[in-house]
């Protein structure tokens, strides 16, 4: 291991304290020392848990970002109520540099009944000519398609369709708050009947269980909006900062749609994103203590080694070894444990991530919590994403903490005077 065996060229050139540090951790012709194994394992477990936890948190963040952007665009324009002149606003936003597409939307809640079974989903009205430039709905339609959607049809989310037993080609009755208001005024009340022409699935439990899509005109009819809409969803060119773009859009809208305000997806969801980041930071902070605890174990083991090897340390001094080189020998042992443990931890962590869904499946089957996982965590599969910055932070923390663990023993070893160490005889 480490190329320090007999006669390797690396071993020949190594300074004595590097060579001895490696040999004390990985001696020639002997079994892997227990101290080395336990120390490396401690660091590796800490790194593995950090990799898995931070990756899963990163995966949640990325999935949430994907869902927000896929359903709302990079920037959303709202007017506080209704956007009175959507055509002028659309034209203004379209001219903003970096805008790849813009589409109007109207939203609300309706009562939907299929064969007498009522549900109360959120409803989105979309402009069929523009929506695909902003929101990739086609990607999520599992059965049927957007091409079949017209003013007399509807697309249901998968779990909602399953819950009410609705099938393609079936008809649902949709009742809006406006119709209920008319009912209160003793007017004739006729729910809108729409044909199911598609079923979509985004992968987010809340959206998949409680959303329906209709054309913008249907939604405007149901809510009595006339030509107005609730807002615009904007898609930006790849790489453009949504906050910068939203400022440009606000400038463009200031004359044509006073009162309308564009917000990036980050700004619109900043509280939620802050909580997610806070959770991620807390998990990192707590799990890094596993490495700290293992570092204490490394310190304690190396301190014992300093005491046990007092005479050898004295001999090295007698042979001409300088105190700083003796210190380096012990400090390096901490560094080597840190590096080896980190590499092992990365391997274990990425291995665990690779098999994460299998492990979660086994765990949920054993505990009977499959449905709970989907219900509470929104995702059918455990997402994972490790940002390069997070990976760097984990590696640096692990190696630095382990190296620091060697400092105290190194200091003790450097302070030993050869004559006193040899007098121990």
């Amino acid at each position, binding site marked *: 291991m480490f190329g320090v065996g*007999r*006669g390797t060229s690396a071993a*020949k*050139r*190594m*300074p*004595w304290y590097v*060579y*001895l540090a490696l*040999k*004390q951790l990985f*001696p*020639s*012709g*002997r079994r892997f020392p227990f101290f080395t194994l336990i120390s490396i394992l401690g660091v590796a477990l800490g790194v593995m848990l950090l990799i898995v936890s931070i990756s899963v948190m990163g995966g949640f963040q990325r999935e949430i970002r994907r869902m927000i952007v896929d359903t709302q665009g990079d920037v959303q324009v709202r007017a506080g109520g209704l956007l009175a002149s959507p055509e002028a606003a659309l034209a203004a936003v379209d001219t903003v540099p970096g805008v790849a597409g813009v589409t109007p939307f109207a939203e609300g809640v309706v009562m939907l009944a299929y064969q007498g079974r009522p549900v109360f989903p959120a409803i989105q009205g979309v402009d069929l000519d523009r929506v695909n430039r902003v929101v990739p709905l086609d990607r999520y339609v599992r059965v049927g398609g957007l091409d079949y959607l017209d003013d007399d049809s509807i697309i249901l989310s998968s779990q909602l369709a399953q819950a009410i037993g609705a099938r393609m080609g079936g008809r649902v009755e949709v009742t809006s708050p406006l119709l209920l208001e008319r009912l209160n005024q003793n007017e004739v009340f006729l729910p809108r009947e729409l044909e199911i022409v598609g079923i979509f699935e985004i992968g987010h439990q809340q959206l998949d269980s409680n959303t329906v899509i209709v054309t913008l005109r249907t939604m405007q009819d149901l809510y009595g909006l006339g030509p107005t809409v609730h807002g615009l969803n904007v898609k930006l060119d790849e790489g453009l900062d949504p906050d910068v773009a939203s400022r440009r859009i606000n400038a463009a809208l200031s004359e044509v749609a006073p009162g309308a305000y564009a917000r990036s997806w980050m700004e619109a969801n900043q509280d939620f994103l802050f909580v997610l980041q806070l959770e991620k930071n807390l998990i990192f902070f707590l799990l890094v203590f596993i490495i700290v605890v293992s570092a204490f174990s490394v310190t304690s083991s190396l301190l014992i080694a300093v005491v046990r090897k007092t*005479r*050898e340390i*004295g*001999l*090295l*001094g*007698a*042979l*001409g*070894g*300088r105190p700083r*080189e003796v210190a380096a020998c012990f400090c390096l042992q901490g560094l080597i444990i840190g590096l080896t443990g980190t590499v092992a931890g990365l391997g274990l962590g990425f291995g665990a991530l690779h098999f994460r869904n299998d492990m979660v499946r086994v765990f949920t089957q054993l505990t009977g919590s499959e449905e709970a996982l989907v219900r509470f965590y929104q995702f059918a599969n455990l997402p994972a994403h490790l940002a390069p910055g997070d990976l760097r932070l984990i590696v640096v923390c692990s190696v630095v903490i382990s190296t620091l663990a060697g400092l105290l023993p190194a200091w003790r070893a450097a302070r030993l*005077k*050869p*004559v006193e160490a*040899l*007098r121990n*005889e």
Partner: protein
Amino acid sequence: MSEPVLSARDLCKSYPSGDRRLEVLRGVDLAVAAGESVSIRGESGSGKSTLLHLLAGLDVPDAGELRWDGSTDTGAVRRARFLGMVFQSFYLIPEIDALQNVLMAGRILGRTRAADRARAEALLSKVGLAGRTHHLPAQLSGGERQRVAVARALMNAPKLLLADEPTGNLDERTGEAVMDLLLGLCAETQTALVLVTHNAAFAGRCQRALTMHAGRLE
């Protein structure tokens, strides 16, 4: 007359003992010529090892002067080049084999070339361990370990060898073999030897036999 390899003049050393100071060395004078062998005997606690540590530059005398080859530089790097040491308890590093233990003396001076390795192998061969170069200390007998320690002490071709009870942990026959080796190699390489021992027979084999008494050499 040429400059002695080792020259100690009026070396004094004392240690605190309760509220008094225990005077261990009270003005030791010693000069050792190149290739000369000198033995020092004395009762336990007479200060033999203390003197050896002072001569090795591992400890600082309270008074007096120490010169190696006429120079007062007795720092760690000079020590590594100038002298070799053999101890009663061998002090081999258990994690590395015999060859690497010998090489360690050179490695500390940055000597890691093929020629250094060849020298270490040749020294192990000279001490009769040609076939045991890759054995760990735990796989060697006491006599073999001390031979490795002798080879290590000679690795940097020192001018002076200090041996502190080198046969103290060995049986009589093995001790004799180690002494034969030590004296033979020192004579062959013209290395001066200062031998601290309790054994009168071994002391008698040196060119000069001194006794430590009341903190002085007689």
